[in-house]
């Protein structure tokens, strides 16, 4: 296989840039994901109305919206390669680990973009009281990291099966439930003014464990 130190940061960076560029060229994935997120948000907001004094509900619904948006879009990174028959080419120039890490970073950027649009809109539409920004952003970041780690590896696995789209949500959701549970209870504490250290640590540890396992497993993704 390829010559090289393709495990190096340079290769990962190159993959990330290539992903961003090809996403930017069509914006197909991003617009679909944003549309999906906003539609979910609208239906939630429409269905339950403003929840100014129900911060427990606010916390839960926020993560449900984000999770849906992520599940609808994060398998895209690998499925696109398979459908466009570009994966072989990609594998010629980079090691599986570099590809995996690059895609992981891309998914993370992708999530951040989605959140940058969805979260402010959510806070406004639902009439949420102002969050404690430090805690709020920390939970959002750690949660997104866990989401991206699980979704990237599962996306790579799923892209090699039949019926990819349907399977992706079903297979990755169970792995994301711990993230969802911890993030929701952290958000609740954040709005209620309680400590969030336990949840943040749990989210961080879970994301780190997923990341470590992914790094060991990327190598086996494709048969040589």
């Amino acid at each position, binding site marked *: 296989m390829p010559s090289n130190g393709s495990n190096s940061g340079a290769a990962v960076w190159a993959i990330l840039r290539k992903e961003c560029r090809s996403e930017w060229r069509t914006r197909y994935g991003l617009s679909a994901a944003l549309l999906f997120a906003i539609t979910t948000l609208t239906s939630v907001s429409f269905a339950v109305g403003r929840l100014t004094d129900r911060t427990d509900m606010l916390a839960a619904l926020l993560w449900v919206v984000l999770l849906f948006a992520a599940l609808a879009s994060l398998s895209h990174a690998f499925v696109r390669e398979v459908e466009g028959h570009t994966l072989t080419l990609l594998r010629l120039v980079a090691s599986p680990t570099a590809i995996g890490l690059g895609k992981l970073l891309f998914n993370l950027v992708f999530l951040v973009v989605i959140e940058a649009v969805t979260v402010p809109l959510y806070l406004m539409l639902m009439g949420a009281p102002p969050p404690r920004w430090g805690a709020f952003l920390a939970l959002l970041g750690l949660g997104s990291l866990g989401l991206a780690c699980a979704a990237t590896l599962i996306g790579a696995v799923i892209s090699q099966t039949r019926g990819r789209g349907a399977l992706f949500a079903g297979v990755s959701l169970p792995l994301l439930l711990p993230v969802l549970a911890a993030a929701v209870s952290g958000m609740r504490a954040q709005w209620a003014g309680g400590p969030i250290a336990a949840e943040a640590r749990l989210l961080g540890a879970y994301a780190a464990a997923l990341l470590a*396992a992914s790094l060991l497993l990327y190598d086996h993704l494709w048969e040589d």
Partner: protein
Amino acid sequence: MDREVRMIGRLALFLWIAGWMVAAFVWAPLVPVLGETTRVLYFHIPAAWVTVLALAWSMGHSVLYLRRRRIEHDHHAAAAAEIGILFCVAATISGSLWAKAMWGSYWNWDPRETSIFFLLLVYAAYLALRSAIEQEERRARLSAIYSALAFVTVPFLMFVVPRIYFTLHPDPIINPRGKLDMDPRIRIVFFAMLAGFTGLYFWLQTLRVRVARLEHRLDES
């Protein structure tokens, strides 16, 4: 000769579990708080233990498959995951009934109940993934990757979450402090059942693997 040894082993397992079942009713005393429901302990905790054991077995063989690419490891991993789910369901149901008796409701999303339910979903997804791939080698490889990743959740769900959140459930499985307060007779029956369940698990495991091997041979011919 080998056959006889195996037969005797199985009969011994049968008598062992049946015997300790009787002992649980007539010999071991009851825990004051738990009353008559004490005996669920001898079923519920061993079932949970076998769940963890089976899932760890599945993860171990998944990793071995990824390294050595022998289909035998895939048989082991799949069989262990199936049996793990089976015992997980058994632990969930017995726990739910116990919760009804002790806390007043079958299901209340106690952190313990939540985490075991998540665990069931994670491994149900493993079986769903397996059924979606037809090529044998690819199925083995991809499900091994998933199984190795899925096992990351096991320590979190089984051990970490219940320690962080408030739960009515007493400390899980291995807990020297809690166990020491127990009457020695309860402890003996408990560990005997644990051993019995472990034996049962390995029997089920070899059976399932042998069936998988037969199916594999049938596919090839």
